[in-house]
Structure formats: C-alpha cells, structure tokens
C-alpha cells in the first residue's frame, strides 16, 4: 500500500493536469475569440476554392456554416459558446475530416498517433540517456582533447533546430549515400511479419537519428556536463575520490544519481518543444505520423483536422508531463520516504 503522502502527491498532480488542460483550452478559446478576422467566412470561401465544391446546395452550405460556428465557439450565448467549445476540444469531436472524407477526425488521428508516439518515445529517451551519460563521463576527463572537441561540437549543434539538421541528414543520406529511401512508405498488412518490422525500422531510423543527434549531443550533453562539473567541485565528491573509489562507482553513484533528477524535470518541461520539433521532422522525412498529417491538413485547409491535432497535442503533452511527474517518487527517495 502506498503511503499517505504519496497518494496525496498523485492526486494533487492529477488535479494540476486537469487544471492545465482546462486553462489551455480556455486560452485557445479566448485567442480564437479576439481574432481580428471573420474566421468562418474565410474558411468556407477557401475550402470551396480548394475542393471546388458547388455552391448549388444552399442547405449544405448552411450546415457547413453551422458546424464551423459551433467548432469555433461562435454559436449561442457566451456561456453556451464556451461550453460547446470545451466539449468539442475535450472529446476531440470535430466531425468529419475534409481531407480524409468520410473518416472522422478522431479516426484519422488515432490511426496516425501510434507512429508519432513511437518515434517520440524512442528518440526522446535515447537522446536523453545518451546525452546525460556522455556528459557525465566526459566531465571526468575534463580538459582532455575529446572533451574539448565534444564541447565545441555541442555548442554548434545545440542552437540548431531539429528540422534544420534533418535537412542536412536528408542531403547526406538521400543524395550522397542513398542508404534510406525517402519515399512515402507503404505498410505490409501483416503486423507480425518480419517485413513489417523492417519497414518500420527503415521509416524511423533517419527521423529518430536527426532528433537524437541534436538532442543528445546538444542540450542534454551541455547541461549534464555543466551539472557534473558542479558536483565534482563539491566536498563529498572530493572525499569519495580521496577514499580511492573506482571511477565507475563515482560515475554511477555520485554523478549520474545527482544529475538524474533535475534532468527529468528539464525533460518534462521541454516535452512541448521536442514534440513540436518531432512534428516538423516527420514532414521532412515523409514519416506517416501526426506531423505529416498536420502538413496535409494545413495544405488542404482542413480546419477540423488541424483543430483536432491541436487539442490532441495539448492533451498529449500535458498527460506525458504528468506521467513523468508521477514517476518522480521512483527516482527521488526524498519524495518516497518523508
């Protein structure tokens, strides 16, 4: 059985999660409200131009207006508008996607979501682990040539956004060394076949690589190295060193353990940025995730789908951050025993 204060902590964290999602949607609502242009008229004019829909059926046009008015929270009294807007965003019920008629927005998103989640989880965890370990190890050999080279590399890599580096990778691997195909992938129908795994692997390697290199050798390396250097200058570390503890022990018990906690916090704060970067990376590599879907939706003027992805990402990032915070007690004994 969990101790009482832990249950309290969990409940409080989940309460914060709900409050965050609620406030985020409220902010979105307010921002949409103060837009200086007539959103619905613009959308319908554009989607008619794109799809070439006939103006013949006034009933259909009227229904379209109604749906959009409701989606953007422009129908009824202010309270009604707000409630229906929140309702649509929380349930992601944005009706039928223009791009993938007759599928609903929910169906389209849920089909693409696993791809994005797989890429994100895989590349984020890997870059976080690699970056932190390299940073800590290198700090043990401070002043050596390797550490200087890595640090200069990190300073160059860190400010570059994921997608700019992705372009460089595409140029290298798509043109100079054509190892990976950049054509849109077609999945074999049998999920449990070897072919399926190979296809997924081929699709995922390059986008993941572009995120991992920038993430691991950029920010995670720089921050973990800075923290490790701080710890090395502390007395307890010096004492450990004088006692003649092996380097591996110092690394595991003294450095990594102390770096871990602030880095987890940093990870959960940066999740939104990483998520956005991954979306753009997907577009460049034709990866069949949410990012590519977003790109197609924007180009087709598919507002329901775009709003669906926006609400999906707000909920997704908030939940992921919450899960990370819930895992905190596993790592930090100060929260576990109190």
């Amino acid at each position, binding site marked *: 059985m969990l101790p009482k204060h832990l249950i309290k902590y969990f409940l409080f964290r989940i309460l914060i999660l709900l409050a*965050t999602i609620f*406030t*985020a949607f409220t*902010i*979105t609502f307010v*921002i*949409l409200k103060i*837009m*200086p*242009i007539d*959103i619905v008229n*613009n959308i319908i004019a554009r989607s008619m131009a794109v799809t070439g829909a006939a103006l013949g059926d006034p009933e259909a046009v009227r229904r379209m207006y109604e749906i959009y008015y409701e989606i953007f929270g422009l129908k009824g009294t202010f309270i009604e508008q707000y409630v229906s807007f929140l309702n649509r965003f929380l349930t992601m019920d944005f009706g039928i996607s223009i791009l993938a008629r007759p599928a609903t927005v929910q169906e389209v998103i849920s089909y693409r979501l696993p791809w994005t989640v797989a890429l994100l989880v895989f590349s984020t965890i890997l870059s976080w682990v690699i970056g932190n370990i390299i940073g800590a190890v290198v700090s043990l050999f401070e002043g050596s040539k390797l550490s200087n080279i890595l640090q200069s590399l990190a*300073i*160059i890599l*860190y*400010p*570059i*956004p994921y*997608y*700019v580096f992705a*372009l*460089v990778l*595409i*140029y290298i691997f*798509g*043109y100079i060394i054509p190892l990976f195909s*950049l054509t849109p992938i077609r999945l074999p129908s049998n999920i449990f076949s070897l072919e399926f795994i190979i296809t997924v692997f081929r699709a995922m390697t390059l986008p993941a690589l572009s995120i991992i290199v920038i993430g691991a050798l950029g920010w995670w390396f720089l921050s973990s190295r800075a923290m490790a250097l701080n710890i090395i200058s502390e007395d307890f570390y010096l004492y450990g060193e004088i006692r003649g503890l092996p380097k591996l022990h110092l690394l595991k018990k003294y450095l990594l353990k102390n770096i871990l906690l602030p880095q987890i916090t940093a990870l959960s*704060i940066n*999740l*939104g*940025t990483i*998520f*956005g*970067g991954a*979306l*753009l990376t997907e*577009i*460049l590599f034709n990866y069949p995730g949410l990012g590519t879907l*977003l*790109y197609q939706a*924007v*180009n087709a003027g598919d*507002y329901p789908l*775009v*709003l669906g*992805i*926006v609400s999906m*990402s*707000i909920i997704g*990032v*908030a939940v992921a*951050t919450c899960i990370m915070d819930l895992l905190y007690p596993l790592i930090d004994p100060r929260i576990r025993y109190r």
Partner: protein
Amino acid sequence: MGVRLVVQGLFKNIIKTRKMGLKFKAGATIFFVIMIFGLLSFLTPHYHSYWYHFPQAHPPSLQSVDFIFGTTSNGRSVFWSLTNAIVNSLIIAVVTSMLACHIGLIIGILSGIKGGVIDKIMMFLTDSFIAIPGLPLTIMLAMILKPIINLFLLGVIISIISWPWSARMIRAITLSLREKDFVIFAKFSGMSTWKIIFSEIFPHILGFHATNIINTMLGAIGAEVGLAFLGLSIIEMDTLGTMIYWIQRYGAILQNMWWWVVPPIATLILLFLSLYLVSTGIQEFLNPRLRRVK
C-alpha cells in the same frame, strides 16, 4: 532619474565590450558579416520579384551579381532572395523579441514585486501558457490569420508562445532582489514602488534581459522556419523559412541543386550559432563564475 541610471548602465556595458570573451567576439563577428550581407538587400533590383525572369535552375556563375549563387527552379536569383530573406527574418525576430521580452519583463517584475494574489494569478496564467505546446498553437493561429498575414503579425503570433518563459525567469530574479538590503532600505526610506522598480531593480535585470532578447530572437527565427515548412509563413516574401519551403516544394535536395539548398541552410545555422554565442558571451560576462579558468 531611474531612466538616467539605466541609460548610464547601458553605456557602461557597451564600453566594456572590449573585455568580452572569445565567444562573444566570434558570435558578434559572424552576426556582423551576416548583417552586412543582409544590408545588400537594399540594392535589390526591381526585377527580382518576378518569377522566371532568369533561366531556371542555373548553377552559380560569375557573369553577373544575379548569378553568383545561381538561380532557383522558379527562375529567381538565389543571391537576392538570400539577402532579402536575412532582413525579413531578422525583422520578424526583432518584432517578436521586443514584444515577448517586454511583456515578460513587465509581468515578471510586477508579479515579483507585488506578490500575493496578483502574483498567483499571473503565474498561473504564465504556467498555463507554458503547458500549451507552442507549435500547434502557432500553426492554428497562422492558419486562421493567413489572409491578413504580414511580417509584424507573424512576430505577434510567435510572441504569444514566447513570452511566458521570460516572465518566469524575470519573476525569479525579481523575487531574489526583493529581499536584498538595498531594496528593503529603499522601501523604508519611502520610495514609491515605481521608483524602486526603475532605479533599484531594473538595472540588475538589464543583463538578463539582453540575453533573453537574443535568445527570443533565436527562437523566433526557428519558429518562422517551422511555420514556413507548413507553408504558413508569408510565401510571397523572401524569408529564410520560405526559401526552405520552396526548396522542399521543388525537391531541390533530391535534384542536387546544392547552390539553392546550401545558402539558406548555412545562413540559418550560422545565424543560430552566432546569436547563441553572443548570448552565452554576455552571460559569461555578467556572471564570471561561468567563465572557465584555464
């Protein structure tokens, strides 16, 4: 009087640039070179805005300035596009940093000084903005505002997601300053809150504010490129983002049109690098503990 102090502080800092470290100098030099390149855009010939004015996909040659970097698939000079792109991207960056950083500054100082309910409300708002993943929100806004988009508006859109970070940091600094003896002394000697903010607190925040402005510029340039990937930047204008948008649109990478691909991407990377170096340079200057002793 407070304003005079601030101006004095600024001048003192500018004079001190001679003592700045290597990072700052390297960054400032790269940035300066890019700026000079951007300033060439004022010489842009009038025919630059037309498509297919030049032969399509012409590799670089030295026959005239227009062909120095070759031409694009839609028959435009890469050289003039690049110079214009630098200026336009920097305009977006400056608009964003001026808006976002100053909103952050005001909210941060106010909630740090006032405390209590105002602080709680403002910080709750800030935290909620931080919790919203920035890119999807900007994409939604850019898509809706597409019919009336311009450089300034694009800056405003990007500001919406950039200000909370500065507000949080400024508040943290203000909170630590509020407990310092000289602020308490000023308060007891009957100084008004505004005067305390301007003459006692603001000068100490100035350094952070400067690095913050540069970092926000960095973020804004990146965000514009991100939006442009989706075709949501100002497509009819040259920015670093839209240049990459057209590169992608025409598959220039796969056709190996390196003269079109390399300039914007290299400029982008150099710009990021130089701004980052300048901001770390300022940070090291302000906080000598960050300087590594050789």
